[in-house]
């Protein structure tokens, strides 16, 4: 606790998310290391998305969060508490320090707004950039995520891009204000495998590039195995296991993790049941 810089960019402790009648997330701990990709796996409905939304304070109105989510400041040991934070604090964090990429690139971009507008409006809001400046930066961003003809792309609309390109644009939108944390909620689920491979490479590059820490939510253990450095497995709102990738895939400690892996074709735990040939 005395080191000058917290090794974790984002620390979740005892996070509980509940509606009036149900507990969605039952108290989880999770630390997101700086500059790494942290995979969050688990069956459908286990609360992965809600955990990510809780970080941004964007839970549906019917849900409340308790516990602690601390976002480390870029320099210095200080951190910002996000659970129960005021609107002003959250507005400053959203998009600026923590950004999010959603599952379906076809729905997370506004179909009636040109890409350039969607890339620049929060830059201008958060960073106070002028129109020209913001566009310049946006162009550079699109280049960075390898969208062809970045300049021309700014005035195009989402439907004029392919699914993979749209997801790259969504990532560019997230990266626009140089956040320290990127929450990627199943960013490749909607994509074809050949397209997915490209997006995964991009995420890897971003994480390797330095300051960005990525929380990658996915239920695809193949994807997890490909890019995550650290893996957390959730089930019914609880963390069942959290371990470095190699360890989790080769020697899972928890039964649930094991059964998950066993169901996967191609994994080292694949069962050769008599039903399969």
């Amino acid at each position, binding site marked *: 606790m005395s080191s000058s810089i917290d090794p974790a960019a984002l620390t979740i402790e005892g996070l509980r998310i509940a509606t009036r009648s149900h507990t969605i997330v039952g108290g989880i701990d999770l630390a997101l290391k700086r500059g790494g990709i942290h995979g969050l796996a688990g069956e459908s409905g286990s609360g992965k998305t809600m955990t990510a939304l809780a970080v941004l304070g964007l839970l549906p109105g019917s849900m409340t969060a308790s516990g602690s989510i601390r976002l480390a400041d870029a320099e210095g040991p200080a951190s910002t508490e996000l659970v129960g934070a005021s609107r002003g604090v959250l507005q400053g964090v959203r998009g600026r320090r923590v950004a999010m990429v959603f599952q379906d690139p076809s729905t997370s971009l506004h179909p009636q707004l040109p890409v350039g507008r969607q890339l620049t409006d929060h830059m201008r809001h958060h960073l106070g950039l002028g129109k020209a400046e913001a566009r310049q930066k946006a162009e550079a961003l699109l280049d960075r995520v390898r969208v062809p003809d970045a300049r021309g792309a700014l005035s195009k609309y989402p439907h004029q891009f392919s699914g993979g390109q749209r997801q790259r644009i969504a990532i560019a939108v997230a990266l626009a204000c140089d956040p320290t944390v990127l929450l990627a909620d199943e960013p490749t689920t909607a994509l074809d495998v050949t397209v997915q491979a490209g997006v995964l490479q991009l995420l890897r590059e971003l994480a390797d590039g330095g300051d960005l820490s990525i929380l990658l939510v996915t239920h695809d253990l193949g994807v997890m195995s490909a890019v995550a450095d650290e893996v957390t497995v959730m089930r019914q709102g609880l963390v069942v296991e959290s371990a470095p990738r190699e360890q989790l895939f080769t020697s899972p400690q928890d039964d649930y993790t094991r059964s998950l892996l066993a*169901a996967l074709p191609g994994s080292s735990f694949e069962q050769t049941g008599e039903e399969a*040939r």
Partner: protein
Amino acid sequence: MSEHVTSESVSQPEREREPLSGGRPVLEAEGIVVEYGRRPALRAVDGVGLAVAAGEVVALVGESGCGKSSLARAIVGIEKRKAGVVRLNGDDVPTLGLRRRSAAMTGMQMVFQDPNSSLNPRRRVGDQIGDGVRAALARGDRGSDPADWLRRVGLDPAMVSRFPHEFSGGQKQRIAIARALAARPGMLVADEPISALDASTQTSVAALMRSLSVEAGAGMLFISHDLSVVRRIADRVLVMYQGRVVESGVTETVWQNPLHPYTRALLAAIPLPDGAGRLPVAPAETDRAAWLDDVPAALERTTV
């Protein structure tokens, strides 16, 4: 009348086709073309032929929008074919119209991707499986008990009197499968039957489908973009790209030795859950052009 040309002579298959896993073909399709719209039409399926033998599982893989569903629907007769013939046990399969399907044609059934829309929400599942049983009876086949079908797909037989909304997606898909199988089809077409399911149930449903259809001696056309599942349950695989089959052959052969660049890219892009941290290979944009080329050697392969 001397000039009369039979439809058969027009649509001679361009090359001889040998069913690979033996047995007579239940289903034969030749030169299927499906188009949407007019001026200019969008050609979703561009001259595809295939055959499925009794007891054989043939998988169809390919990226989104390559025409898999269109092909499946054209085979069953839901979609109008622009060209091509489909024969079920030697009889032409007509397009579904206002007239009711003949008894013989109920020998081909289909399972759809979305389990939620496959079942009539206002009817008890037992009734709906009963429709299948009645179809079998109408064809002169053996009858059966809907409850028994529930048991066979791994559900509680007592659930016959429930309504679809009381089931989870995976369970609904099992019911849809039960209904299709209750008609005792000789041919089952399954359009991404598992992609809407939970990761944990996908494999088991796929395996169930295989075992039940093989057990019944039915042929199955299994559409999926999940290559790892395909690898586990398919005898043969067809790889589609932009409306055409670019590669086909015995599953393992294709897997071990993909000849078409698209097949290669596809296989290389699958991330393996081995914990090795290997990034899948992403094909470059420029590669896509090459994927349109035919590689004749990849088209019909029986051996490595």
